[in-house]
């Protein structure tokens, strides 16, 4: 039975980074990138089983850390003003900003505890007055809104919803498994070769229905080349490939 290991949960990659910096008692402005990167990667390793959605954000940071680590090993880059650039600069800025808001959130928490001790009063309108239902000034409420403007709002919203869908990934559609029998394909190609003796690779591919079938055909041709059954020849780059069947081999 596997022993469940409880990892400390971090609120995103910056949170983890701050924790590591804090744990190692190092200066945020002078982060020992190599050390922190190693520890960071170690943590991610242990996290592997977690939700991939969460992981991706940690991985982006890992890539950034490794990039910085690489750049630290290279000669220092110099900017337009001739100053040496520290590859860590951008990350330090981001970390400090995050740290600031994290700190403010503790401050807010303290205030909330104090403010929670204050109570309010429900509305107690005398009965005589309660009967006056405040009228709504519709003319003012609607303003210069018209039906066609409302329609425009709806349209732009529907468009936004369409835009939100990632056009690349959503067009992948469903990946279906296609069953192609390798042996069947091999004997088919061999009989085709026997019949034609000398034939064009393109013609052979054109007879294949799906992309998967083409891939298999290509693999079979490669296999026959290796065993010497096929002799292939191409006169020019991107030209058609001529295949000759060699029985004796």
């Amino acid at each position: 039975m596997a022993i469940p290991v409880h990892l400390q949960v971090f609120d995103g990659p910056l949170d983890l980074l701050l924790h590591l910096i804090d744990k190692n008692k190092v200066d945020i402005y002078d982060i020992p990138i190599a050390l922190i990167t190693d520890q960071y990667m170690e943590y991610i390793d242990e996290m592997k089983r977690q939700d991939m959605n969460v992981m991706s954000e940690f991985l982006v940071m890992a890539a950034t850390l490794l990039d910085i680590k690489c750049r630290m090993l290279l000669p220092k880059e110099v900017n337009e003003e001739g100053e040496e650039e520290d590859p860590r600069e951008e990350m330090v800025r981001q970390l400090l900003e995050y740290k600031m808001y994290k700190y403010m959130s503790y401050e807010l928490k303290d205030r909330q505890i104090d403010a929670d001790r204050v109570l309010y009063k429900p509305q107690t309108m005398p009965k005589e007055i309660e009967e006056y239902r405040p009228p709504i000034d519709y003319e003012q409420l609607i303003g210069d809104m018209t039906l066609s403007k409302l329609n425009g709002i709806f349209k732009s919203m529907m468009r936004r919803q369409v835009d939100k869908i990632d056009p690349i990934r959503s067009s992948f559609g469903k990946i279906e498994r296609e069953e192609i029998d390798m042996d069947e394909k091999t004997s088919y190609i061999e009989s085709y070769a026997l019949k034609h003796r000398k034939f064009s690779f393109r013609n052979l591919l054109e007879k294949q229905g799906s992309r998967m079938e083409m891939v298999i055909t290509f693999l079979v041709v490669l296999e026959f080349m290796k065993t010497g059954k096929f002799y292939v020849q191409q006169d020019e780059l991107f030209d058609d490939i001529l295949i000759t069947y060699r029985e004796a081999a």
Partner: protein
Amino acid sequence: MEQKKLIAVLEAVLFTMGDSVEVRKLMEITETAKEEVEGALEVLARKYQAEESGISLIRLENAVQLCTKAEYYEYLIKIAKAPRNYVLSDTVLETLSIIAYKQPVTRLEIEKIRGVSCDHAVNKLVEFNLVRELGRLDAPGRPLLFGTTEEFLRCFGVKSLEELPELNTDQMADFQAEAEKEVQLKMEI
């Protein structure tokens, strides 16, 4: 408990309850004898009698309650009568347009389109009487269905919902076709 503190506690309790509170209950909360509570209530009542106070302490059998002095009702009436000058925020308008064109519609469907919670906007629209509950959808959780009101038709100068045609099925089909052309995918809008 010191009397000053006792008075303050009683005021805080009566204020936050709004309603009447039994003297016995006040004794319990403050762990104080009846005479002391009664004494403190008297001081409190006298304090409110001052001209510059708008509230007063009234006695009801064995209970006490804070209430507004009747002479200031006219100002409360002014507040109650004042037409509320609200405007429809972007958020509320967007929600209204979804309800208008997709009714009957549930909160969940609205949230799917807008990508954010819509409770506040829907409540506002119901309060403005532009939107009303139409019943419940026969689905798990029996969610409420919303639609527009007669007031909505009046406000937008529409005679009936059929007159809202522009963006019904045709337009939706257009969007869908457009979207499909763009991203080559089938989508349910």
